[in-house]
Every structure is written in structure tokens, then in C-alpha cells.
């Protein structure tokens, strides 16, 4: 019965779809999809091109004789660097891991009262967080540097990690997602005698796993691509992205290696996204701003 009902609904939906419209949309999607994908496809192919193919005229999109030369060159370049390359990788991984974990914890802890409790100042605090979504972090770059130097964070990992804990978009998304947890669940835990902290940790947190994942991915993107925001000067503390940027600065002589770097840099976040996509969409469903 329900299957029948469903198929009926599908057919009904098709009634207001015209063939011409569908064809136009397909074409539109194909052209724009190509525009979005081709640069990435080109970079992936260029990473496997031997030198003579990179400088072939006319240029080609796809590789003919794939080789790992560029990756070997990259390894050789990195082997000669002043600071061992593993150190750059460690720096980025450390900053990303600390920042992501801290952000999820801090933002969730702050989101729970904003979503589920009533207290004076709640609306004001949330309004400020929403306002913070409305300007880019570059606006505060100069005072931020001064604050970092007052508290002695300049030239440490913390200058990048600690501000990431209080990234506004994460709190916003987490709060919106927590609002859909049924109040009855929290009330029941209260009746059982659980403290607010225990409710937060044992009732609310397990129920917002999709939102954790979303916050992780969003912050991962930012921290994975960080160059230190101008706070890190010691070579041994610099990030992977900083190191690879120096390689790319080599211009045409490093075109192949540059493509190899691009491939490595983009493969990590894209892989993560593939595995977490459905959870992220689930979180985004609650992202809307109410009047």
C-alpha cells in the first residue's frame, strides 16, 4: 500500500516538470559542473605528468604517461629543507587536532545553555554571536595581534589554536542543532537526579553527534589550511601549508611539484567530507536563522 502510494506521489510530482526544462537544467548543470571540477581534475592530472608533458604545447588536460616523478621531486626537495619536513606535518596535525577537539567541547558546552535553558542575557549573547558571523576575521587582525602579544602567545601554537576554540559559526550551528533535542529527554534526566553537567555530557552530547562532525569538518578546513595567521615566526613551528607555499613560490620551475602538493593538500579534507557528508547535511538542516 505504502509503496503504491509512494510511486503515485512520484508520478504526481513529475506532472509539473517539463521535458524542455529538465534538459535545460541538465545542460546547465553539466557546464557548471565542468567549471567546478576541471581545475581540480587538471591539478590531479598535472601531479602525475612528467616534465615534458607539463610544458607540452598545446597543453593537455589528461596525463598520457603517468609518473611519480613529481612526488619523488617533492620528497627530495623536502628532504633538503632546513627543518625536517615531518616537523611541518606534525605542526599542522597538532594545531588541527587540538583546535578541533577544543572547539567541539567549548562550543557544545556553550551551546547547551543557549539552546535549552532560560537565563538573563541569553538573547543578548546569542545576538552577539550571530553578529560575529556577519564580519570576516580580517577586521580584527590588528587588535588580535596586540592581545596575543600581551598574553605571550606570539610565536606559539596557541595563537592559532586558542582563538579557534571560540569560532562563532560552530557555536551557532551547534546551538541550532541542540534545539531539536526533545525537552522531555532532558526533563526525564532531571527527574532522575542528574546534574546539568551530567545531562550535558551524557544526554545531550551523544545526541548531537552529527553536529560534532560538522564542527570538526568546518574547523578542520580552516586549520588545515592555516599558515599561522601571522603569529608564528620560528621555522620549526610553521605549518605544512606555509612550507608547501614556499615550494609553489618557485613558479614555473616547480609547476609539477606544485600540482603534487595541491593533490596532497586537497585529498585530506575531500576524503573526510566524503565520509561525513550525510551527517553534515543533517546538521545543516537546522542551520536556519529565525526571525
Amino acid at each position, binding site marked *: 500500500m505504502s509503496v503504491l502510494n509512494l510511486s503515485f506521489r512520484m508520478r504526481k510530482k513529475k506532472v509539473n516538470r517539463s521535458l524542455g526544462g529538465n534538459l535545460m537544467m541538465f545542460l546547465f*548543470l553539466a557546464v557548471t559542473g565542468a567549471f567546478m571540477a576541471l581545475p581540480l581534475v587538471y591539478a590531479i592530472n598535472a601531479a602525475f605528468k612528467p616534465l615534458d608533458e607539463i*610544458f607540452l604545447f598545446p597543453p593537455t588536460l589528461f596525463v598520457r604517461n603517468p609518473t611519480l616523478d613529481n612526488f619523488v621531486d617533492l620528497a627530495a626537495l623536502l628532504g633538503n629543507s632546513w627543518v625536517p619536513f615531518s616537523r611541518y606535518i606534525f605542526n599542522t596535525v597538532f594545531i588541527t587536532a587540538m583546535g578541533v577537539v577544543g572547539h567541539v567541547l567549548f562550543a557544545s*558546552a556553550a551551546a547547551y*545553555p543557549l539552546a535549552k535553558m532560560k537565563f538573563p542575557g541569553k538573547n543578548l549573547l546569542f545576538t552577539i554571536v550571530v553578529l560575529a*558571523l556577519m564580519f570576516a576575521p580580517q577586521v580584527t587582525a590588528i587588535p588580535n595581534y596586540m592581545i596575543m602579544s600581551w598574553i605571550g602567545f606570539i610565536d606559539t601554537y596557541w595563537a592559532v589554536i586558542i582563538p579557534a576554540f571560540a569560532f562563532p559559526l560552530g557555536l551557532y550551528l551547534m546551538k541550532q542543532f541542540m534545539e531539536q533535542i526533545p525537552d522531555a529527554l532532558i526533563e526525564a534526566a532531571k527527574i532522575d537526579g542528574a546534574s546539568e553537567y551530567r545531562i550535558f555530557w551524557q544526554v545531550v552530547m551523544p545526541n548531537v553527534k552529527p553536529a560534532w562532525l560538522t564542527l570538526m569538518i568546518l574547523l578542520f578546513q580552516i586549520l588545515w*589550511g592555516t599558515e599561522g595567521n601571522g603569529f608564528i615566526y620560528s621555522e620549526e613551528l610553521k605549518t605544512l601549508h606555509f612550507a608547501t607555499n614556499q615550494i609553489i613560490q618557485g613558479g614555473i620551475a616547480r609547476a609539477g611539484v606544485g600540482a603534487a602538493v595541491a593533490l596532497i593538500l586537497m585529498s585530506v579534507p*575531500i576524503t573526510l567530507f566524503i565520509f561525513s*557528508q550525510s551527517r553534515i547535511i543533517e546538521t545543516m538542516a537546522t542551520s*536556519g536563522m529565525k526571525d
Partner: protein
Amino acid sequence: MSEVIVRRQEGKTDGPKPGSPRDTWWSLKKKAFVVNKHAYVLMAPYMILFGMFTVLPVVMSLFISFTYFNMLEMPTFIGWQNYARLFLEDDIFLIAVKNTLLFAAITGPLSYVACFVFAWIINDMRPKVRAFMTLVFYAPSISGNIFFIWQMIFSGDRYGIANGFLIRWGIMLEPIQWLKTEIYILAIIILVQLWLSLGTGFLAFIAGLQTVDKTLYEAGAVDGIRNRWQELWYITLPSMRPQLMFGAVIQLTTSFAVADVSIQLAGFPSVNYAAETIVTHLMDFGTIRFEMGFASAIATVLFALMVGTNLIVQRLLRRVGQ
């Protein structure tokens, strides 16, 4: 209000007991604080950091913008001088404002509409295809700062992809220095900015479309909705207004903050300041010339521009489908 009245009446009938503290403004605040202790404790770690690295800097920036400050000497108050200099004497700032507004006016609305249109088309597809198309459109913005690929595409020699194909197809005879020619720089940055723009807003729209109540479409068909455009305007858009507002904030804020793409592709400073934006101008004065007062004035103008536009757009979006 009623609470206050009740309390006053209680005060009248009982009268304050000798020795008991009276309900002053402070003691009431304190009571409210104690009752909601847990909420404040849970929020404290985040809010302290948020205050320190987001709220305080905005306030500081506002104050510093009225001073002369070079990081070495104490700031000295100079009133509106920074702003006067910014708008009346600094020709390059005016170029930067023009470029930023141009970028924002083109990439803001265009990327917003693109986010929605793609999400809308993708939404009709089977789940597997939908997931794949989402990845295709979202991949550029999630890939980190790899827009340097475009440097290879628009490289000025004939090995650059754009030059190579255009010469091969006989459209032109000599390679063009794309990133060193003023008229092309702006167009290329807009193109790359659009390429990067299907981000968080796009995901929010995809999610929003999936939450629209399906029975509304059936009801709409009964009520005489003829085609998908009517369906879009009368059912889909009003149902996902909250996501539309969220997406607008994300797209607008990014469209005003163009800087990294400009620096990476066009250089810093760019040829004849063709790609100068408010943010790159801010970086010039803040990190190279150390005129912090002046740079803060630039930051304050940018802040006002971003928040102001966002608030106006929010107001407009509330009318969608009404």
C-alpha cells in the same frame, strides 16, 4: 513587570525584617546569577575566549581608529583625522572600496543564487547522484587554499592552460599576461572567487530543501500550482526562509573579505592596484607600514560595511514569498 509589582506588595505587607538584606538591583542580579549558575559555568570557557578574541578586538579597533598609533609609542588621540585622510586623501583606498564593492556586488548575489540553484537542481536527483554532485560543487571550497591551481591556468606564458587553448583554437596569436593586465585581473579574481563560493551556504540550502514538507507540494498541486517556478516561489522558498537567511550571511561576509585570492593571483600590491581590496589595503597599513590607527580606521569601515549590508539583506529576505 508583574514580578516587580508582586515583590513591592510583599515589601509593603511584611516590611523588611530588621537585619535582612533588601532586594537591591545588585542582590537581584546576584540571585538570578546563582539560580542560573550552571548555564553561566557551561558558557564561561567559550564566552571568555570569544570576548577576548572577537568582541574585545572590535571595540579596540574602534578606539584605535581615532588615534595615531605605531606600536612603539603610546597611541595619541587625533579625532576623525584617520577617517578624513582615508576618504579625502587616500586615492588607493577609494580604488580598494570600488574593487571591494564590485566584488561584493557581483560575487555576493551571484554566488548566493548559484548556491540555491545548484542545491535546488541537485535535490531532485537520486540520493547517490545527489551525494556525488554535492561533492563536485563543494570540493573547491573544502580543498583548503589550493586556488593556486588557477595560477597555472592563467599563467602568462604559452604553457598556461588558458593561453595554450586560446592560441591553439586560433582565437589569439600571442599569450596574454592575464594576471598582469589590469582589465583581466578583476574578472579572473571574480571567477576564482565564484569557484570557491559554494561552501557552507550551499550545504545549508541542500539540507534546507530536504526538510521542506513534501505534503505541501501535493497540497500546492491541488491548489492549482502549474509549474516548478510557481512551486519554487510559493512553496519551496518560504519553507526554507531560515536557511536562506543563514546562507545570505555566509555568502555576503565572504564576498566582502576578498584578499587571499587577490594576493595569491595578482600579487601584493597588484599591478597599478587593480586588485587592491579593503582587506589588502588594511594589511598594507597594518602589517607593512605599521600605521595601526589608520589601519584600524580601514577595519572599522569594513566592519560597518559588512554588518550593515548583512542587516539590510536580512530585512529584505524576511519578505520572501510574502
